[in-house]
Structure formats: C-alpha cells, structure tokens
C-alpha cells in the first residue's frame, strides 16, 4: 500500500522560497515546452523566442515596459487586498470602470481644459471609478457575508457588458462610421509617450510611485498593520478592535482604484478612445493576480514580476506571429505558470512524503 502524506514545513528560509519559485517557473516552462512539442513546434526554439521577443530587442523591451505598466499598477494593488485575504479577482472590471470614468471626463472636459488639468482629472476619475467598483464586493462581503470571489468575478462581466452597451449605444462616436466605440479623446487628454515607443511615461512613473507608497502603507502604517492582522487571523482582528468594514472598504478602494489608474493609462496612453472591453484590457486584471502572487504579496516586487509577465505577454504575441500559433498560446503559458507557482507555494509550506508499507494491520 502506498500512502502520501503531508505535514507542515516549519523551516522556510528566504533562499528556499526563492529557489522554490525559480524551480516552479522552470518546471512550468518545461510543461509549456511539452505543449509546444504537441503543437509541432520545437519547444526550445519557441521558449527562447518568447524571451527574445520580449527582452531580446529594443522594440521588445519597449513593448514589455508598456504592458508592464497596468500589470504593476494592478498587481501592486492586489498585494494589499490579498494580504487581508480579500480575494479580489475583479481587477479586470475595476480597470474597465476606471476606463469608462476617465473617458467620460476626457470627452466632457478635454476640449476646454489644458493638459496639466485634464490629465490629473482623468486619473482622479479613473481611480474613483475603479474604487467604486472595488468597494461593492467589500460591502457585500462584510454586510451580507457574500463570498468576494464570486462577487468580484461577476462584477467583471457586468462592467464589461455595461461598457459594451455604452459604446454601441449612447457613447457611440460620430467619427466611427457606425462602428462601436467612442470618439477619440481630445489632444489635451492624451498622455505623452517616450518617443519611438508606446510607453506612456506618466502612468509608468505613477505605477512606480504607487508601488513604493503601497510598500510604506503595508509595512509602516496603522492601516497596513490592521490589514495584515485581519489577513493573518480575523478573530484576533476582532479582539483587537479593528473595524472590518472600514478596513475592507479602504483596501478595496485602493486595490480597485489602482486598477482604475491602469484603465486610464490604457485609454489615454494607448487606445485614445473607448472600444470593446477585450481591446481595452487584454486580461491585465487576471494576469495581475499571478503578478501579485509571484511578488510574494510585496508591492515592490510586483514591479519585477510585472515586467516578467509583461515579457511573457509580448513574447507570446511574437511567437504567435512568427510560429503561427493560435492566439490562446499566451493564456496557456500564463495559466501553466500560475498553476506551477501555486503548486510551488504548496510544496514550500507542506512537506510531502511517500510512504510504502507492505500490509497494514487493522
């Protein structure tokens, strides 16, 4: 008889945890390689193409940084929510809400205000949009004990449909020849880019500032302290007199608001108008979950893991074109890596032993 048992591991060192992560990534890439093999592509070639496509050329690097911007913003915000064990998987919807709010601001006031007013105003309204969409599940959870995984996930779809309704209905632009989508934002509302790239630097700088501030918030402030206590042990939080509603509202406002920032960046920095949900975001809200996880829930590390996953997105796009793989390739790569990272986490925290005995007594 073979029995597999698990027990808690007590001796986790930082080195061990780093090695586990690296090993998980390698193992994940190995499985991805097998998938490539099945698809009839040389796996070594494909994987090296991914990394060459993203980090191997100036163009690749520029694209990687561009895609890292929303990932860093959202990923950093998620580290805060996840620390409180608030499983926010609704960043995609929060991003879209931010995009909707800021588009409205841009289209309404963009013609009358100078750039230095309209841009901050758009970021502000985008934050509000994301935050509002973020605090709904917080209220539902604390007041009515509705599981946040379900509510945040569902709110994604509601927001996406709402956005679609806007762009095929009331907000459809007169310059779009009948195609869905708003008009382009006025010149003043469009973010500047680093010449020769699509890197909208104001959002990039904002994302780095946010990561640093969040780090301070988590480790230095009373609010961050309360977040960590609630996440570690809700009963102790209650005993300590922490107000759960207030804490959850603030942390979801921040987490959603940062996703809203990302939405502003995508609209004002890249697309310049509000189009279909899938074109606005390409799943950043979901990829950022992996970003936060790989960052070990530390917002500063989210900068690096954000860049890493942005690289995979860009590299995945590159091999789609060069190797003629289907569009789902990137998602397979991302999903596989997430599974391996989570498995790695499990093996890090639990010791597994296989136990063989010939015959056990009754």
């Amino acid at each position, binding site marked *: 008889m073979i*029995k597999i048992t698990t*027990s808690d591991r007590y001796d986790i060192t930082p080195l061990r945890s780093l090695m586990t992560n690296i090993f998980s990534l390698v193992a994940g890439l190995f499985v991805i390689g097998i998938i490539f093999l099945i698809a009839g592509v040389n796996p070594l070639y494909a994987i090296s193409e991914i990394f060459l496509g993203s980090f191997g050329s100036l163009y690749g690097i520029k694209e990687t940084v561009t895609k890292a911007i929303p990932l860093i913003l959202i990923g950093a915000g998620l580290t805060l929510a996840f620390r409180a064990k608030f499983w926010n998987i609704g960043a995609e919807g929060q991003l879209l809400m931010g995009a909707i709010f800021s588009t409205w601001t841009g289209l309404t006031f963009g013609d009358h205000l100078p750039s230095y007013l309209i841009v901050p105003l758009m970021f502000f309204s985008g934050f509000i949009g994301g935050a509002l969409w973020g605090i709904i599940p917080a209220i539902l959870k604390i007041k009515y004990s509705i599981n946040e995984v379900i509510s945040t996930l569902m709110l994604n779809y509601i927001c996406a449909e709402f956005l679609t309704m806007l762009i095929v209905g009331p907000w459809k632009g007169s310059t779009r020849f009948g195609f869905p989508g708003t008009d382009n934002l006025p010149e003043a509302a469009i973010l500047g880019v680093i010449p020769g790239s699509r890197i909208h630097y104001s959002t990039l700088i904002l994302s780095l500032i946010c990561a640093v501030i969040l780090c301070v918030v988590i480790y230095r*402030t*009373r609010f961050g302290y309360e977040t960590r206590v609630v996440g570690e042990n809700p009963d*102790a939080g209650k*005993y*300590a*007199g922490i*107000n759960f509603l207030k804490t959850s509202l603030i942390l979801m406002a921040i987490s959603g608001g940062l996703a809203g920032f990302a939405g502003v960046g995508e609209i004002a920095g890249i697309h310049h108008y509000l189009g279909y949900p899938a074109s606005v975001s390409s799943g950043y809200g979901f990829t950022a979950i992996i970003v936060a996880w790989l960052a070990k829930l530390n917002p500063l590390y989210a900068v690096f893991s954000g860049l890493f996953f942005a690289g995979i997105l860009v590299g995945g796009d590159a091999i789609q074109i060069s190797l003629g793989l289907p569009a789902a390739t990137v998602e397979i790569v991302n999903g596989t890596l997430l599974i391996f990272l989570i498995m790695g986490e499990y093996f890090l925290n639990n010791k597994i032993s296989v*136990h063989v005995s010939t015959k056990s007594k009754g």
Partner: protein
Amino acid sequence: MKDICKSFHGIHANKDINLYVRSGEILGLLGENGAGKTTLMNILYGLYQPDSGQIEINGSPIRISNPVESITHGIGMVHQHFMLIQNHSVLENIALGYKDTPFFSPKKKLRKQVEEFSKQFDFKMDLDQRVWQLSAGEQQRIEIIKALLNGADLLILDEPTSVLTPLEIKELISILRQMKADGHMIIFISHKLDEIMDICDRVTVLQKGRVVGHADTADTNKKALARMMVGRDVVFNIDREKLEPGKKVLSVQEIHVTGDKGMPAVRGVSFELFENEIFGIAGVAGNGQRELAEAITGIRKIDSGSVRMNDKDITNKSPRHIYDNGVSHVPEERIRFGIAPGLFLYDNAILKQHHLKKFSKRYFLKYSQVKNHTKTIISDFKVATHSINNQIRNLSGGNIQKLILGREISEQPRLLVASHPTYGLDVGATQFLREHLLALRKQGSSVLLFSEDLEEIFELCDRVAVIFAGEFMGILKSDDEKLCDIGLMMAGSKGF
C-alpha cells in the same frame, strides 16, 4: 532517544538529550517555558527532524520522517494546541486521522469501531457533533481516541491538563492509569507538579534544552523538582496584604448573553467591582465564563442588561472603545484570539494597543517605540525568544502566553479581565504573574479573574463569585466561612 540535538536559527532548543520510556510506564517531562519539551516531542512524533541523534524502539534504531511513520511505529501525540478541524464532526475528524480509513463511505465502518472503543474506556460523546461545539476536554478525548485507534503504544500528551476542568482531569488520569495497566507507555508534559507527582513513575527535567535531572517520583518531592527545573528554590506562597476597596470601577447589571450553540450562556448576571480588588469567578469550564468575559470586553453581543465602566455605559460598544475605557483582556482562547501567528513579535505586542498615541502618529506606526515596548515586555515577563524579529508562532506555548499577559498588563489597565491567566505557565512564571496581579491591585486597578484553580482563587481574590449554568450561585468574601462549600456551589447548589 539518544543525544538528540535540534536548533533553530543557531539557538539550541534541544541539546544532547537522552530519554527512555519502559512499557507500562508514565514518564513526566518537566521544564520551564521554552525549555524544549514540545520540540523534543515533535521530533519523536516526526514533525521535526533532529539535527543529530538517534531514536530507538526496542533497541533498534528507527528514522521517523513524518507523523505517519511515527503512527506506524505506534507513537501517538496529543498536541498542546488541538489540531482538529472545527467545522467537521467528531467522527469525520477521527476518520481523517485514521490510517486505515476506507476511501469510500469512510464513516460507516469507522462508527462501530469508535463506539466500541469509547465503551472500553468509558468515553461518552456524540460522534455527530461538530468540533466547535465541544469543550476542551471533549476535544482532547477525540485526540486520544485518534491516537489509540491507530494502535499507539506510546502516547505523548503535551500539557493535556492545562485546559481541562478538575473533573475532566480526574477522568483523564483514570484513562491514563488504565492505559498504563494495559502496558501502554505515556509521556506526560505538565507544569503542575501535583499532577506529575500523582501519576508519573519517573520524571525527566529539561532546562534550556538540556536534561538537568532524572528522578523517580517515589523518592522526590515537589520542592526538589521545582528546584531542579528552575535552578533555585521556588517559594510557593504569596501574601495578599489587606486593602480597602476604593471607588466603583465596573458594574454589570442583569446581563444575558447567547453562546456559540445559540443557547443562553449567561443568564442574568450582576456584580460590581471596586478599585484595589481582585474579583474571582470560579466554576467548572463551560458554564458561561468565556461568554461573560467576551461580553464585557465587547467581542460578544449582550442581549439585555448593561455594563458600566467608571459610570460610563459600555454595553455592546466596540472592543476598541471598551479598551480605551481602561479594560484589558487576556482571552481564554489565546491562540485563536490573542495573536496573529505569522506576524512578528513586535507586531503582536501591540495588537490591542496599536491605535494609541504612544505607538502611532496620524496614519503611521512608530515602529521604534513599538520595538522598544516589545523589548520591555520581553525582559519584564521573561519571554524566551532569540529576537523580536521572530514570528510569534515560533515561540513556545508558555512564552506566547507571557507575551499576551505582558501586553495586556503593562498598560496599567483600570480593569483587567483575565481568563485562566496561568494556563501553560511554568511554576516560576505563575508565581511572577500572581505577584503582578497583586501589584496591579495595589496600584488601584481591579482584576476580574476567571479560574478553575481554586488554590489560585483563594490565594488572590478578595471576593469570589461561583458561576453555574450561566448564573451566579453566590458571591462570597474571601474570609467567608462558606467558602469551604465552594465545591458544592460549583456543582450548582445555591442555598446560601
């Protein structure tokens, strides 16, 4: 066990430990908080790997790399903090830990087996109850059944009695005696010397991770054991000087509170508490003590009645509001309420206090003050730890306890609500804590002390209330002659 060594972060928790148990023998393991008892037993049970050393059974060396292997070698363990799944039923919990649980319909086959077993040892329990509905004693019995079902020859009990009522302790001891008669081996960890003297055949004493002595209980006494353990003589009594009660601090009027099972747990309790006073609440566990303490400190809702602190109404106010009105709380379920296990010591040292001006400035925490405060608690209360940058879950049970006590006492509360404050503390620390409570009393604070330990109650309290089924059976002064009938009152007779 031979020459066992184990260190954490370069600090020895166990050093060159030699230990043996013969069949049909109960071995007591004694030592101060943090001496390494739990660590040593975790090694034997396969939870930790020793850095060096050897475990032998019947003379042949074995390697135990996880609890399943220890179970096949006939070793079972009941942990200091129970490890049952609260939302599962008793039977499900047993099935989970049983090595031959069938894959399909695991409960059916097991039920008969468990029922037979319970009869043999005279356990009474409802197998379909959820674990969270059970008292500590009942939970412990599940752990013992789990171990015995798996055919444990050697049963390790880590501080089994600290959470039990006196009656439950008696029952446990008779179970242990029966097991001993059946030829089982038992390792019994306790801080209560009386129990050790009572049931153990031999004692091994640890100090700072090393064995400092062995003794047969037949030719030693409490005093000698305590000396061996602490390294100096321990004085066993303290005197409580006479103090006149001062102003009224707390007044509780006719409060009713609902318990976890949805039944009334506290039914119309009233009392007042004055400065310079320690007010004891005696009673067998599970008679509403926990609910009463939680209601006063704001963790549990009060259905009717009122609580006033310094003449301000604090009924159903938030725990923080109540704390700010001068009420500290050492909760009964400390691991559940009292700490955030994965956070550092200094984070845990301000769990209830972090919002105070002393530790926070606007939105920020003043970590340098926090750390200094933590260091003070650690040195005042002799918390054994290698550093304050240590997750609190790494501390020994008694040291977690000391940190919580230090945290709640050091702020000079007007009222300290302390539930079983000496559970799990070693002799020295118990003595120290009692002195501290008396010092608080002298400085004009009052203490509401929940305890089952009558000796402790008699030693410390100015007045004692006896609680039974959520009601007070009476309130007695410490010099009242009826105090000798307290046992009857605890069993529910009023008549005074």
